[in-house]
């Protein structure tokens, strides 16, 4: 195991975050704070509680998930796309590193950043709404697993993307709608029966439901199923990445 290489890639990626501090940390924190102000405090104060939880508190897990999903995807995809775009990938390809080490570096850094952001938002939320965390360990488990899974997913997008447009289209056009429709702002039990069924095809529903359970002990779907879905998604991403590295697809001719 080339530990120095993993460390080098990991630190390089975190340094990139640090260089773009405003864009990578301040802006998600600001936009989430706006959600809390608008939906949590202003509108939320006039809404009825869902499952006995005040609306402001109800949206906390969903908002954290929204940020964690988009940030881990876009970060990991950008991290591996940039060297491809600028040509510096030659160095990674010529280095004595294995696929696993490359992934640990890039995905590890993207996931770390997403987790850190999630925790910052969690901390920020305290200033706007009252909430408690019933199962802190499970909360961390869901957070970490989700960040890793979607960083793997982002890594795949970054490898496959041929342009900056393709790079951004998935977080914008897929992740954000799925998260909004996945129960960030409502319980799926509030939907008409048909839509409840359709919604179950949205993988993000399981993530948000499980994550919210770790906060308040209530869930839209069984928490075991939530966990299973995250693991399944993670396993699928790992399988695709194995295939990419095995065939050299889009990386090496």
């Amino acid at each position: 195991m080339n530990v120095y290489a993993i460390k080098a890639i990991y630190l390089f990626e975190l340094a990139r975050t640090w260089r773009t501090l405003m864009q990578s940390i301040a802006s998600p924190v600001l936009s989430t704070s706006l959600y809390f102000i608008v939906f949590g405090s202003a509108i939320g104060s006039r809404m009825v509680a869902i499952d006995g939880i005040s609306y402001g508190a109800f949206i906390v897990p969903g908002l954290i998930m929204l940020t964690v999903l988009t940030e881990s995807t876009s970060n990991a995809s950008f991290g591996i796309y940039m060297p491809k775009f600028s040509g510096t990938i030659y160095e990674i390809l010529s280095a004595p590193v294995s696929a696993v080490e490359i992934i640990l570096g890039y995905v590890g850094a993207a996931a770390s950043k997403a987790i850190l952001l999630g925790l910052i938002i969690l901390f920020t939320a305290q200033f706007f709404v009252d909430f408690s965390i019933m199962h802190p360990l499970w909360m961390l488990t869901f957070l970490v697993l989700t960040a890793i899974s979607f960083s793997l997913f982002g890594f795949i997008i970054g490898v496959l993307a041929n342009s900056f447009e393709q790079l951004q289209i998935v977080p914008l056009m897929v992740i954000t709608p799925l998260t909004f429709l996945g129960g960030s702002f409502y319980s799926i039990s509030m939907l008409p029966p048909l839509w409840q069924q359709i919604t179950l095809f949205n993988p993000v529903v399981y993530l948000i439901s499980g994550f919210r359970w770790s906060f308040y002990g209530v869930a839209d779907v069984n928490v075991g199923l939530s966990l299973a879905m995250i693991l399944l998604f993670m396993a699928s991403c790992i399988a695709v990445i194995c295939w990419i590295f095995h065939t050299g697809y889009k990386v090496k001719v």
Partner: protein
Amino acid sequence: MQAIIQVNNLSKTYPSGFQALQNIELEIRRGEIFALLGPNGAGKTTLISIICGIVNPGEGTVLVDGLDIVQQYRKARQRIGLVPQELSVSIFETVWDTVSFSRGLFGKPADPAYLQQLLRDLSLWDKKDSKIMTLSGGMKRRVLIAKALAHQPQILFLDEPTAGVDVELRRDMWQMIRRLRDSGVTIILTTHYIEEAEDMADRIGVIRAGKLILVDDKTSLMQKLGKKQLLLQLTTPLQQIPVALAGYQLQLSADNNQLIYTYDAQQEQATITSLLRQLNTQGIEFSDLHTRESSLEDIFIGLVGDAA
């Protein structure tokens, strides 16, 4: 002594169907400077990219210091540093960070003292905290060299290292390459400046349309393929070459003032004595004489000319 790089029967066809390399057989000797010459698109960069691990080999094998580049890629790649042709470097980083990154990537623990010396040798030390985007093209090129040397490789590949580099910097760069060779590093380079290869290289390989058409010591290559010419400045112009001198390969210059005698560099030079004696007998006098050798460039054009 075992070759430091051994290329056996290497072929590469790209997915587009373009065959970049055909049955390449090549041995690079430990500690030499090897120049790989060839026209654009001949396969130089493909060959280097395969040895360095950037492009997958098609058929054939490559051993680096006895290690297979596919099976034992970790150990093989640790021995190699690569300076690419393009100025591909992460422009938002500082010089120090990018060089430290390269060292780590190649599996070496941090060694600030070595990196400091390296940057000093490349006249980059006072720029160590500068972002790369603020550097000139020549400095970026040196940053790439520093990155390639950050893990103390035994073999250094330089793909067109002096392309777009000004004369002074080019001279500095060659001095540095000589110093590296003196410290035991094997150097493989490609260049368009053939006079540089002539000046620097111990051995030369010529690649044309994916085939290695020649590998030889520079000096023996120059001797074997080089022509020599003796130029005689005549005191009075000649209208034609006298019949008595027809046995020699003589030419008359356009202004009829110069006799040009072309001879094989390998041959005994006794013919020159007899030619001069003949000129004396014929009463042809000359005011000056000098010889010239064909350059590596002349030889190179002769070799690849019909394909280039």
